[in-house]
């Protein structure tokens, strides 16, 4: 059946395009203005002189350090998640008995534990462990809070592997270890990439854990940098907004090149 275009929906989508596009326009155009031009010409008009000075200023204000810290946090969170979630999902899908069903239920319940709800005891635990104001103190809780969704997505992917394949490997006398590496991991690549996308986004955009669990310049991440920038030099809007653009640049580049995988990943996160 051929579908005719739906004009009403098309119109609605254009309205949404404006809603999304407008602040993005203000965001981008403001970063190329001087501070003087921002306050005299306002945020809407096209600036007379374009400048890259705001971006240069961000780096002299310590953006490079924030960026590096965020990269470290993101890479570590993804590494932890990739280390512990696939074996867990494998056990949930293939092991038998009540214990594993209970474990799965714990992770499902964990889906709705909001980070805000546990932030006070998290502060207590991290301080007692001597990890306050260290990146590792941000990495561990961030990774832990990625686990429920990642487990859900990956078990969904692993359930699609048919029983015949397991039986064929069993006939060859394969150990669980070999089944895991030669069957389960290769066949759940889609789920694994979703998990990587989700945990990387979580870590890259994380705010609450860094806000509560770090304080010094040397352990600051980008989101916290934006927040501090706003509270400290609130009037330098072009400088602030160019830092916002820099903070989203890496994700946006990934988005341009791997839009399909990224959207699929995000869909898997909510959809499975």
């Amino acid at each position, binding site marked *: *059946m051929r*579908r005719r*275009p*739906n004009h009403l929906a098309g119109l*609605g*989508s254009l309205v949404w395009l404006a*809603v999304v596009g407008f*602040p993005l326009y*203000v965001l981008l155009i403001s970063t190329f203005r001087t501070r003087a031009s921002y306050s005299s010409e*306002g*945020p809407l008009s096209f600036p007379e002189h374009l400048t890259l000075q705001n971006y240069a200023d961000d780096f002299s204000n310590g953006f490079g350090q924030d960026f590096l810290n965020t990269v470290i946090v993101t890479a570590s969170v993804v590494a*932890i998640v990739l*280390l512990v979630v696939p*074996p*867990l999902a494998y*056990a*949930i899908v293939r*092991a038998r008995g009540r214990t594993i069903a209970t474990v799965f239920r*714990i992770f*499902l319940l*964990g889906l*709705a534990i*909001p*980070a805000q*709800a546990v*932030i*006070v*005891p998290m502060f*207590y635990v991290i301080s007692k462990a001597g990890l306050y104001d260290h990146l590792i103190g941000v990495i561990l809780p961030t990774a*832990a*809070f990625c*686990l*429920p969704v990642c487990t859900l997505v990956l*078990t969904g992917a692993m359930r699609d592997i*048919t029983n*015949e394949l397991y039986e064929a*490997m*069993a006939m060859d*006398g*394969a150990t*669980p270890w070999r089944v895991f590496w030669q069957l389960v991991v290769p066949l759940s690549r889609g789920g694994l990439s979703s998990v990587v996308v989700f945990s990387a986004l979580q870590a890259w*955009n994380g*705010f609450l854990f860094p806000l*509560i669990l770090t304080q010094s310049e040397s352990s600051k991440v980008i*989101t916290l940098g*934006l*927040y501090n920038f*706003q509270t400290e030099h609130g009037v330098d809007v072009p400088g*602030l*907004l160019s830092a*916002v653009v820099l*903070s*989203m640049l890496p994700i*946006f580049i990934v*988005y341009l090149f791997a*839009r399909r995988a990224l*959207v699929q990943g*995000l*869909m898997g996160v909510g*959809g499975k």
Partner: protein
Amino acid sequence: MSTSSLGSGPGSGSGPGRGARAGRRAGRRAGVGVTRPGLAWAVPATVFFLLFAILPLVLVAVLSFTSWDGVGAPTFNGLDNWTRLLHDPVMTQSVWLTLVLTAAGVLVQTPVSVLLGVWAAGHQRNRAVLSAVFFTPLLLSATAISVVWRAVLDPNFGVPSQLPWLFGDGNLMGSQSGAIAVLTFVGMWQWTPMHALLYQGGARAIPRVLYQAAAIDGAGKVRQFLHITLPQLRNTMITSVILMLVGGLTTFDTVLILTQGGPGTDTTNSAFYMYQQAFKSFDFGSGSAIALVLVVVATLISLAVVRLSGYDKMRGTTEGL
């Protein structure tokens, strides 16, 4: 789906197929048990999760019965925090405000994301390019989103100062209703793309036959949408609304950056009040009590997620255990 579905699989009805089937059955009896992983595979993730998510959950309950300034040791003070919060007008107001913000979020985001998701599931021209732009808010952190909107809506230097015919004096966040409207709008801007993605997936999964049958019966686009699309999206809607509820109850970053809970305490929702009590007033005991309320509500909702969506029954779809 063990033997029965093997039997109904392609090429298994004939002689050689039967032989293979018998062989596989023998294989099951003899060696399949070997390929099942033990519980040890689940241990690292579970221990890690218990330590950094479940243990704090237990601790928050304990801390809510203590007095702790964040430096010394917590001391037990019974129900003090709880009775204090019960008589605290800001606490009462924050609970109200949380409910208002949550309800407003669900009411505004659901229609927009259903329409957008159903649209994106179709085959319009330019859809790829447009949806690439639509979904950019997904990539931004809540911090970045709040910072950008705060700059855009700034009464003196932002857009309102340029468009006085639309915004009046431009101080949108100067009144409670204005601030709530701004928080709801920014929430919609931030979350609609994700929910639209959910609905897009849901709408793609609706069998085309239904629409074909309806078209033969002469039903137009609108009736098809109301009588096929919406009912078929029921499960997606349950999942999406529950996610919105949990998200709405715990809105924090946007409140902190956009309104600081103000004007006065006009937008101090529970999550923000918890943060203020604990990390600004160094009253970690009552902060914990507020957090515990959030935990209980969120847990009840998560139980609803598991029940209504049938996630816990996903076991066995391929194994038939």
